[in-house]
């Protein structure tokens, strides 16, 4: 989502973007915060010469190791954000979206965040599921819709947890314990975070925890240009919430308890550290603020303010950044650093359960998921284990998905269907011939009744365009059945043919009429009568053959 403006605004993109409403709203907040953070500290000039490969090579690490620096772009503007968002068409869970009639696309709840989706892309006979960041844990969003992923030909699996060894429950516990211990000793806690997502769960957890830990007098500050909108938006997306929270909407009670934290003045939110915040600021306290990379945003001020005291603690909860790299420019640092990455996306145990449940014919996933993490090569439990083995892909690789399209569905118009006269050729199997016009538009195929045979039209009438359709030829009946050779020979004899010889071939029989110098080749799906320019004989023989076959 954060890269959307780069695609829609810089690549000549002319299409439609589909997204759920919370994705759009929360995505807008995240982008707005980012733009705000960046624009707050405008750069007078920007350096680009270092991006020259020959120069870059000489730079110290990690600069020299940076990949594809020439493709790095400036951050987009709010205008570009708005323009990108204007191209989005809103969709709801389980809504079926037709794409040119070729495929149907459906978003499903992925359980990871408000409005986050997995997608089903299906035609009438094929189904591909695209699983992105999903969660099976009970947090605030609607639970993951697993049932709809069943019967997939291919399941594309992406967005698994970045920290497979860290169990979110344990990490939340660590978070709370460390927070309590720091505050109890008079220290401050800094939580670098995004303004939406895990923060809702953390606030909920703290809501239950602070009283038991005797922390009810400690202020919690949430500082972000979009703090207010984030806290309020989350409360109004009732239909996208988990069942528990949905029911609260009808009580009426705010679904998230952070409303109560705000009411009781335990949680206060500010757009930035300037203004009201500086008047209200009290220590010891807990501050949630961005950006989790520690490179910009209000978090920078707090790092500088609190970094020198060992009483304070910075707790990293977002899994997107290496906390050591984030901290590097601030070293040496006296404050305690705790790493509790909370990533609720699927881990490998959950994936294996999911695959057992959903049973796709093929799994396609990034290469990294098919081997243990490089740092823990013995942890064979930290990889996808499925049968048949998952098909892996690398960045920018083009994959041929392991299935072929074999069938298309064709609709038949009711009046045409009415005219059909099926004939039962075997018990339970009826056939009918159809003469129709196949009408194909937008990848949809419809059989329409053929035009009436051309009738002499009154000279005065103008020809209508539909009359241009070529006339159908008179239909020959279709044949079915098989020819029993012995009976056929008897029949031939009865009709005066003698000197008949039958030869068996690999595909059937050849009936030789030696006298007439004629050959009848009888095979499973064809019969040939080969005679020398004697049309009368051929027609006679053909009629005898036809006696054994059914016509319809």
């Amino acid at each position: 989502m954060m890269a959307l403006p780069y695609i829609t605004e810089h690549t000549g993109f002319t299409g439609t973007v589909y997204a759920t409403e919370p994705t759009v709203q929360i995505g807008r907040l995240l982008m707005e915060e980012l733009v705000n953070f960046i624009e707050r500290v405008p750069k007078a000039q920007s350096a680009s010469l270092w991006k020259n490969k020959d120069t870059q090579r000489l730079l110290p690490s990690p600069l020299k190791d940076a990949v594809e620096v020439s493709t790095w772009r400036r951050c987009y503007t709010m205008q570009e954000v708005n323009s990108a968002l204007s191209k989005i068409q809103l969709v709801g869970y389980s809504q079926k979206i037709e794409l040119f009639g070729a495929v149907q696309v459906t978003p499903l709840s992925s359980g990871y965040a408000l409005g986050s989706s997995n997608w089903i892309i299906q035609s009438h006979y094929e189904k591909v599921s695209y699983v992105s960041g999903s969660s099976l844990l009970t947090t605030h969003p609607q639970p993951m819709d697993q049932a709809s992923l069943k019967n997939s030909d291919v399941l594309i699996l992406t967005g698994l947890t970045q920290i497979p060894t860290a169990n979110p429950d344990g990490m939340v516990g660590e978070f709370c314990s460390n927070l309590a211990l720091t505050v109890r000793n008079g220290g401050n806690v800094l939580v670098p975070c995004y303004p939406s997502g895990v923060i809702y769960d953390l606030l909920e957890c703290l809501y239950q925890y602070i009283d038991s830990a005797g922390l009810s007098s400690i202020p919690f500050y949430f500082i972000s240009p979009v703090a207010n909108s984030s806290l309020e938006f989350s409360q109004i997306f009732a239909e996208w919430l988990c069942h528990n929270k949905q029911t609260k909407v009808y009580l009426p009670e705010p679904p998230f308890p952070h409303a109560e934290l705000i009411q009781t003045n335990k949680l206060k939110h500010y757009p930035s550290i300037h203004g009201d915040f500086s008047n209200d600021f009290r220590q010891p306290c807990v501050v949630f603020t961005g950006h989790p990379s520690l490179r910009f945003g209000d978090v920078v001020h707090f790092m500088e303010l609190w970094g020198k005291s060992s009483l304070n603690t910075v707790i990293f909860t977002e899994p997107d950044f290496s906390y050591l790299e984030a901290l590097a420019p601030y070293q040496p640092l006296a404050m305690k650093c705790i790493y509790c990455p909370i990533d609720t996306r699927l881990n490998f145990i959950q994936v294996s359960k999911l695959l057992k449940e959903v049973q796709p014919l093929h799994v396609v996933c990034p290469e990294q998921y098919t081997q243990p993490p490089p740092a823990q090569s013995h942890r064979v439990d930290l990889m996808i284990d499925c049968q048949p083995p998952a098909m892996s892909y690398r960045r920018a690789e083009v994959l041929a998905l392991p299935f072929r399209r074999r069938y298309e569905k064709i609709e038949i118009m009711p009046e045409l269907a009415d005219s059909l006269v099926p004939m039962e050729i075997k018990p339970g199997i009826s056939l009918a011939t159809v003469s129709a016009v196949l009408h194909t538009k937008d990848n949809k195929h419809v059989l329409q009744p053929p035009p009436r045979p051309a009738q002499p039209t009154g000279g005065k009438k103008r020809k209508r365009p539909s009359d241009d359709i070529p006339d159908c030829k008179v239909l020959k009946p279709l044949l079915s059945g098989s020819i029993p050779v012995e009976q056929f020979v008897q029949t031939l004899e009865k009709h005066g043919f003698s000197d008949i010889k039958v030869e068996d071939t690999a595909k059937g029989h050849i009936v030789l009429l030696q006298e007439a110098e004629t050959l009848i080749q009888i095979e499973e799906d064809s019969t040939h009568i080969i005679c020398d320019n004697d049309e009368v004989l051929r027609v006679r023989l053909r009629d005898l053959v036809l006696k054994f076959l059914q016509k319809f």
Partner: protein
Amino acid sequence: MDPECSRLLPALCAVLVDPRQPVADDTCLEKLLDWFKTVTEAGPSLLLLQENPCLVELLFRVLKAHDPRPRVLSFSLRLAGLFAAQEDCFQYLQGDSSLFVASAAGQLLVHILALAMRGPAEGHPSPQGCDWPACAQKIVCHVEDSLRSTATLQVTQALNVLTTTFGHCHSPWTQGLWVRLSPLVACLLEKDPIPASHSLVDLLLSVARSPVGSSDCGLWETLAQTLSHLSPTQAGPLALGILKLQDCPQALKTQAFGVLLQPLACVLKAAAQAPGPPGFPEGATGDSITVDTFLSSKSACVGLLCQALAHLELLQLLPQRPSPWPQAPLLRAAVAILRFCHGSAAPTSDVGGHLCAVLAGCVRVQRAALDFLGTLSQGTGPQELVTQVFAVLLEYLTSPDSSPMVLKKAFQATLRWLLGSPKAPSCCDLDPHTQLFLGELLPVLRKRLCSPCWEARDSGLEFLTQVTRHWGGQAAFRHALLASEVPELTGQLLRDPESYVRASAVTATGQLSSWGLYATPTGPEHPEVQQESLFTELLHILSTDSEGFPRRAVMHVFTQWLKDGHADVAEDLEQFVARVLQAASQDLDWEVRAQGLELALVFLEQLLGQPGSRCPYAVALPEAAPPATLAQVLQALCRVQLFEFALRALFDCDRPVAQKSCDLLLFLKAKATPCGGPQEAGASPDVVSVEAALQRWQAGEQGQPLGELEPEAVMAVLRSMDLEGLRGMLAKSSDHMEKSPQSLLQDMLATVGVLGENEADCY
């Protein structure tokens, strides 16, 4: 049998044989059987049958029925068995699909066989059985046929019958029976898979425990053969059983021990980075079958490991455990398993990699391994191994991924290892390694006490209580604890939202306070407010907490404080007892009231001068003048309103409270009477009012206070009360009325009586 029951019995028998009638549930039939058992034990069964022909009729009709209901059939067979024990003569039945019926039939067979063999064949009958009674012959042939059967169910039943036989019958003829049947049993071992392996193991162990075992008869060879034929999981219970046997050949024991050790040997081998120190004794080298089981599936691997750990844990506690006990390799194996489960092992072998994947995060194995590791603390180990043990325990205590149950087990194992650790040789203080470990442990404990998961806080507190109980006097421990902030946090948890945690915090602060390790907390919320003493705080919990557990915990702490002569208590003993009893008397939880009586009893014992007691009162009382002392004591009891509390409890609606109170008053009466004491006060107005109040209490009007009491009046009341009689009445269980056979028969008839009424309605 009393006449009333005799009168009800025919109706009940009629109900039981009537297929249209709903049969009472199994429990009723079980109770009925229990009653018949007492009746048959009390008198001759024959007479019983003659007096109650309905019983014979019942047995006859049930056994003849084409499609008897399993419950009734089972009941009838067992009833028949009861009579058969004295009379003999019943036919047998076996092979019913119902487990109950098959089991009952099997037991009946065993009884009949034992009966048949009792008379003529006593002594040493030939194994061929030509001199056995016909009835016994028939049974044994039936068992032989079943053993040869290809249907596992039949084999199982035959094996079960034999297991019961060898378990109950210890006469010499069983030896002949074994000689005759053992070849057939051995044949079962040749089959693949071995049928009814579970029952086979039971049978072999039953034979080995019986006199047959002591006379060899090739039994040991069969056992050895079975051990090697069964799969590792099936062989585990047999191996444990063999190791429990009193006398059996050493070679067999070694083999059995090898079976139990194999899974752990396998783990050790898989975990080894390089050839390590010598591992398990020969015979336990992690053979390929065990490895195959490990690799076959996750559940097989987990099942086998958990079983092996549980068996070895049991074995270690037994006096006949194998010697030498491979303590060091077992420790290494337990540590390795825990590391596999934690994902911190880095094996190089394939099996190791597989174990890693299977065991990572497996709570079941973690629990079993931690329990086992805890038991191993009874032995010692090389220091470097003990260091590893503490390291892995610390890993588990620290890890945010440890589930609450695993964390609890880790705390328990840590406690056992800590308490088992050696004292420093020079002084009686903790050794340097333990001190070092404590330094790392206490910050972890501190963090656990702040955990948002209440189970974690709770097990942390339990651990703290236990370790303080043992080490409260150790200077190094006291020093580390006081520097750790743990006592303050513990105090904070007295106000925890979770009642279990509050209860544990009460116990922990009580324990800390006993050792002078508790400083009243000054929370971050109100640092300026001077907190009250712990006693006041606990008393507050006792009077206001809405949950029972914390209040019960407070009562236990107070009782302990009183016993120990805690400083807060000794300051003003009477005041202490009075306030506690007052709070406890109003409690709705009977356990709190009962514990109040316990505390009162301790107080009483201290006052009345238990020998060796160090109660300040006992020292203060001049021992030379018992009557005067007694008067003083009674005065004191009146001042703390102990009598009112005890007398009220005497009519408590909860029987245990009343019983305890009765015991207490009897104790007081016994103590007071021999000394003479104050003279009888006659019918003074005091006594009258007391007795009147007691009568009201007995009638359920507990609201009335007793008012000021005079010791003389109390003693007079005690003397006039029939406390012994009351105790006898209270000793009978509250349902003694409902438990009578008559009531049982009436109940059963009442439940089926509905049918009759419905029929009447149809008219």
